[in-house]
């Protein structure tokens, strides 16, 4: 029997010790009328060999197209050591470290993670992770409403330049607590938050302003001015950042005169594979004064009975298993294994390595923009500096162009018209450090051919697989 070690003798011995005849007798407290019949939709079991064959087939169906899509999930090199160590059984198959003495490995690693994240963000404290960037922002919004004692409102300023899926997720999670999300429009020329629209809210009561950097369009916004605006108007500043970008960009703790109050975001670029969107991890850092309002697990350093250094879950009085209905969040399990990977990833790359990777992403994206905008009918969407992603406007239906590219095994970008109809036929493209000159050339060549055909005949172009 798969994953059940009992021999027939074992079963006989155990049943006789319990004093019943059959295993099914152990279910005699379930009312008979509730007992289930045979499962209908679950197929017969398979051997590992058979399932392996099935999964290889499924994987082959999807192929491995050349990916220029980012939009919140980025394909990076992950050192081989990261997942080889992360999937060691001692990390992979351990539980949340409630028994600290039997979990010092995970606990010390999490303390190291907190230390690395605070260094990367230039913030005081970090928690041990949340589910992902989007739900992490929702937790940051809830935290800001709790922590901002100056504000009586339950309103948050949310720029439209924030990832659309993040804004949707935040809405799902905070709406039942009477929190109002007020959208801030962006400047169609720069792709940054519209400073006039922001100024229109000066003097109003908001609990916080969310500040993405880079924003969803890849654009770098004037985060110093935004942070100072928030503080001048009694709002907390919530930084929503790409952690890899922070290796080369001014980190949230240094924004404006006083620094951001909360920094959160998607941890995926730090060692998590794309994997269809998860598991990733959300990170969250904040100023020391707000630590008791932070959701999620936090690890502290302490000593044992002999005075020896050790690590333990701390500030648990914030959490659901102690405070129940008065907890800061209902979060319990978070994303420990992804944090394990991220910690090893950051240790292997170091600050200099991360900065080099970030710079390589930026350089490749610069090349990509140059090559693609040489093509007739392709131009930049905004005239602002970007990190590793940019908006391109196409003189042809974006959906058709992307479909044709996909048929040629290139994922050419993320179509923006559903979320931003005002941008017309625009796509968001990204080149990480993995997209080298050969890849970029392949994309540019294929796009040029498709755009040319498109200009001559009516789209859509009939795709041909290569």
């Amino acid at each position, binding site marked *: 029997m798969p*994953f059940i070690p009992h021999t027939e003798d074992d079963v006989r011995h155990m049943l006789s010790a319990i004093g019943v005849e059959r*295993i099914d007798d152990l279910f005699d407290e379930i009312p008979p009328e509730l007992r289930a019949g045979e499962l209908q939709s679950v197929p017969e079991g398979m051997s590992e060999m058979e399932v392996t064959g099935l999964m290889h087939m499924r994987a082959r169906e999807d192929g491995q197209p050349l990916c220029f899509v980012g939009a919140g999930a980025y394909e990076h090199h992950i050192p081989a050591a990261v997942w080889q160590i992360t999937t060691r059984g001692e990390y992979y*198959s351990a539980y949340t470290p409630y028994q600290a003495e039997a979990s010092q490995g995970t606990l010390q690693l999490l303390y190291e993670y907190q230390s690395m994240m605070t260094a990367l963000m230039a913030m005081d404290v970090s928690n041990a992770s949340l589910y992902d960037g989007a739900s992490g922002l929702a937790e940051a919004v809830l935290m800001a409403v709790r922590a901002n004692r100056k504000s009586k409102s339950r309103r948050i300023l949310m720029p439209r330049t924030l990832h659309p899926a993040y804004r949707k997720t935040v809405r799902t999670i905070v709406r039942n607590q009477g929190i109002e999300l007020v959208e801030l429009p962006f400047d169609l020329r720069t792709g940054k938050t519209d400073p006039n629209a922001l100024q229109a809210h000066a003097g109003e009561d908001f609990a916080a302003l969310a500040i993405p950097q880079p924003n969803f369009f890849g654009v770098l916004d004037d985060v110093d001015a935004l942070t100072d605006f928030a503080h001048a108007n009694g709002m907390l500043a919530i930084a929503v950042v790409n952690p890899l970008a922070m290796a080369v960009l001014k980190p949230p703790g240094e924004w404006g005169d006083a620094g951001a109050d909360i920094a959160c975001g998607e941890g995926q670029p730090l060692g998590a594979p794309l994997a269809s969107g998860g598991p990733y991890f959300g990170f969250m850092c904040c100023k020391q004064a707000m630590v008791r309002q932070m959701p999620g697990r936090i690890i502290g350093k302490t000593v044992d009975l002999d005075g020896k250094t050790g690590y333990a879950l701390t500030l648990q009085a914030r959490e659901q298993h102690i405070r129940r209905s008065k907890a800061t969040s209902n979060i319990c399990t978070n994303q420990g294994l992804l944090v394990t990977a991220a910690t090893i990833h950051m240790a292997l790359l170091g600050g200099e390595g991360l900065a080099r990777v970030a710079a390589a992403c930026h350089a490749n994206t610069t090349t990509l923009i140059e090559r693609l905008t040489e093509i007739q009918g392709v131009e930049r969407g905004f005239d602002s500096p970007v990190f590793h992603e940019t908006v391109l406007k196409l003189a042809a239906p974006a959906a058709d162009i992307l*479909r044709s590219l996909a048929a040629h095994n290139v994922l050419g970008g993320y179509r923006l018209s559903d979320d931003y109809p005002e941008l017309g036929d625009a796509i968001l493209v990204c080149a990480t450090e993995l997209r080298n000159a050969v890849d970029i050339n392949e994309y540019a060549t294929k796009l040029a051919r498709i755009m040319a055909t498109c200009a001559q005949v009516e789209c859509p172009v009939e795709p041909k697989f290569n």
Partner: protein
Amino acid sequence: MLIFEQSRGGRRAFAQAPAQKAELSGIPETMQRKQPPALPEVSEMQTVRHYTRLSQKNFSIDTEFYPLGSCTMKYNPRACNALAMLPAILGRHPHAPDSHSQGFLACMYELQEMLKDVTGMRQVSLVPAAGAQGEFAGVAMIRAYHESRSDDARTEIIVPDAAHGTNPATAVMCGYKVREIPTLDDGDVDVEALKHVLGPQTAGIMLTNPSTVGVFERRITEIAALVHEAGGLLYYDGANLNAILGKVRPGDMGFDVIHMNLHKTFSTPHGGGGPGAGPVGVSERLVPFLPVPMVGFDGHDYHWLTEKECPQTIGKLSAFAGNAGVLIRAYVYARLLGREGMVRVSEYATLNANYLAKRLSDEGFALAYPARRATHEFIVTLKKQAKELEVTAMDFAKRLLDYGYHAPTTYFPLLVPECFLIEPTESEALHELDGFVDAMAQIQAEAEDSPDRVKTAPHSLPVRRLDDVRAARELDLRWQAGD
């Protein structure tokens, strides 16, 4: 020693980053960081050695018996991990078009179908990232349902006092007041108390069955009828689904919404605290409110179902489609088990729990509910030991670590004094169970003869008992240069 303390300026894992640093030509200097972040500067081998050694300070399923009640610490088959880490599966971008996603979507669709079947629910959404997020989705759907009927006076969620802490915390996150009801001495919910709190203000009830005290709620059909009569809905916390897999289905018990913990019942790893996956299943009336995206099938192709197709959805819970990699592991596990294997899970989990309960009881340990059949877990109360020997459940727990057994869940549920919630799972062999009983008996003997040995345990782990008060009072949450 921390990885930071092994750091030396100028050292790196040189194979892992570009040899030259590219120019940040397009980024204004005012936006740039002045110094790279102060991360450790260590070699690749130092890193590998450090984190391998740290791992050896952990207990885990792969190394120890881990009978943590309510957590279902069973074997996590290695094939599930290996197949989820096939390059094309790891490399699939969440925004890949349907043309490059049929293999992945087929797995997700089939998982939805299998979970529908084992829970007896009408439809399943896989997106909640963990049990607590599944709970959130479930209660948010209950709220959306009442709102869609303009039934706005329902402000309360009923929760038994034995419930997991996430239940009341979730109800509050969804804007509800929590009404607690007591548990009877035999472990069942106090139905008279329930009748007393039910009313037009009742939005729903959150129940776990088998309950957190490790017994099957025998009057569940009556409870369901009472709650439905009052206009409320029933939420099923799937923490204990391992106990009943293939034997009885929450949908048949009358539940309207359920979350499953795939990191328990479907053997995906706990990972030292996540990632989990907490899919939700619902009865007919809650189908429109399920969180998106889900996977649909038109008989030929698989496709995503989003806000467009599901306009009444409670919305998205994460940026993409939840913890897809965890879902793939659960899918592989489900295919390995198949329909016969699913039933065997609950059968052998229950056999192991009842055997272990009987043996511990025979050794003189007090069961909290001796008149009841154990499910996949059961409670031992050490209140006699605490009173007569001044050796507490925590002392027993710490001493078990010395014997090479992870401690059961201690002090939960809160209503049983000095309790151990013990869940052996189906994957443990007879000799492991017997070894655990022997260790408990030896600790009992020690508690009688040399109680200090137990009260100061553990003695053989990397650290002895830690000063939690100091950890909270003198907060030290990160390494700083000069530490």
